[in-house]
């Protein structure tokens, strides 16, 4: 009996050793529901791409909403919340379907979504400095995505010239007021409104 127990302990130890890895932190955290609201139906024309189906439209809205929520978490210096939102954003990006777009737009969208998903996933398990590094590139992706898909929400493009050794960093926001996601409390008001979208 004792021998059996010992063997199983050894086996367990070896198994746990061999499955160790530096990043197993992809927590399944799916609180997305995939219901699509019908509120958007009447406003179809507002979108840049008239070919979009209504379902697709709400996936784009979801991506944008999740992105903005992530931006707020970073502006609040909330590492844990940003992790969760990174995972959520990655999931909404994965449900993005670019089939309704012209072939050029489609290629670019696939590229954008792939890149953005990777950055969102990294944000899902990184410390806050890393999250912000990824957020900078993620923001570029999302801004480029919105340029193709359009948006029914009114959004602002903000820009902080100081971030990343003065290379600068942009982000999207629903409000005109600056709340800097790259510095948070340290320099919450640093930045300027670049433009209004829609």
């Amino acid at each position, binding site marked *: 009996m004792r021998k059996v127990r010992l063997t199983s302990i*050894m086996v367990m130890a*070896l198994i746990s050793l061999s499955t160790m890895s530096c990043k197993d932190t992809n927590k399944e955290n799916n609180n997305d529901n995939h219901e699509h609201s019908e509120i958007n139906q009447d406003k179809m024309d507002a979108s840049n791409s008239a070919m979009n189906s209504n379902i697709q439209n709400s996936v784009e809205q979801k991506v944008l909403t999740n992105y903005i929520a992530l931006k707020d978490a970073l502006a609040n210096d909330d590492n844990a919340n940003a992790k969760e939102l990174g995972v959520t954003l990655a999931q909404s990006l994965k449900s993005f379907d670019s089939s309704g777009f012209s072939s050029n737009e489609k290629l670019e969208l696939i590229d*954008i979504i792939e890149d953005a998903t*990777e*950055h969102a996933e990294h944000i899902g398990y990184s410390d806050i400095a890393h999250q912000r590094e990824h957020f*900078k590139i993620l923001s570029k992706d999302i801004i480029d995505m919105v340029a193709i898909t359009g948006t029914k929400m009114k959004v602002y493009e903000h820009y902080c010239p100081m971030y990343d050794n003065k290379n600068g960093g942009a982000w999207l926001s629903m409000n005109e007021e600056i709340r800097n996601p790259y510095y948070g409390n340290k320099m919450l008001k640093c930045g300027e409104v670049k433009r209004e979208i829609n």
Partner: protein
Amino acid sequence: MKLVKIISWITLIIFAVIQFFPVNYNQSETIPQTDFMIVNKVPATVYKTLHVSCYDCHSNNTSYPWYNKLQPVAWYLEKHIDNGKKDLNFSVWGDYSDRRKKSKINSIMNQIESGEMPIYSYTVIHRNAIISKSDKEAVIKYMTSLKDSL
């Protein structure tokens, strides 16, 4: 005493048995046309730094010391290399879109500048993979120019 003996035997047997578990070794005979070094004109110092410090986990060709082919080390490495290649694989550089390339270059610069890459668990064995200050600067400078050219 008897217990110690039993434990040692069991350990030895398990160790022997797991040697027969297959592992996909990350090795290839040829350098693909999509390799970072073929796609780009890389200066000799940067070439050497990337090869010595990055390619073991970020390309399709790892140079394994003999002990790295022993289990369970090989399992541990396989996982590490899989993760490394998922984030960045220099062997397929040519297949990345410009957006992806820029994105990867950003991460390369951040990781090398902050000293997070190459990771400690690697440099603790591969002492020569530690990137010197001047080599770091050369890589950053090269990557910056490469990014601007895209």
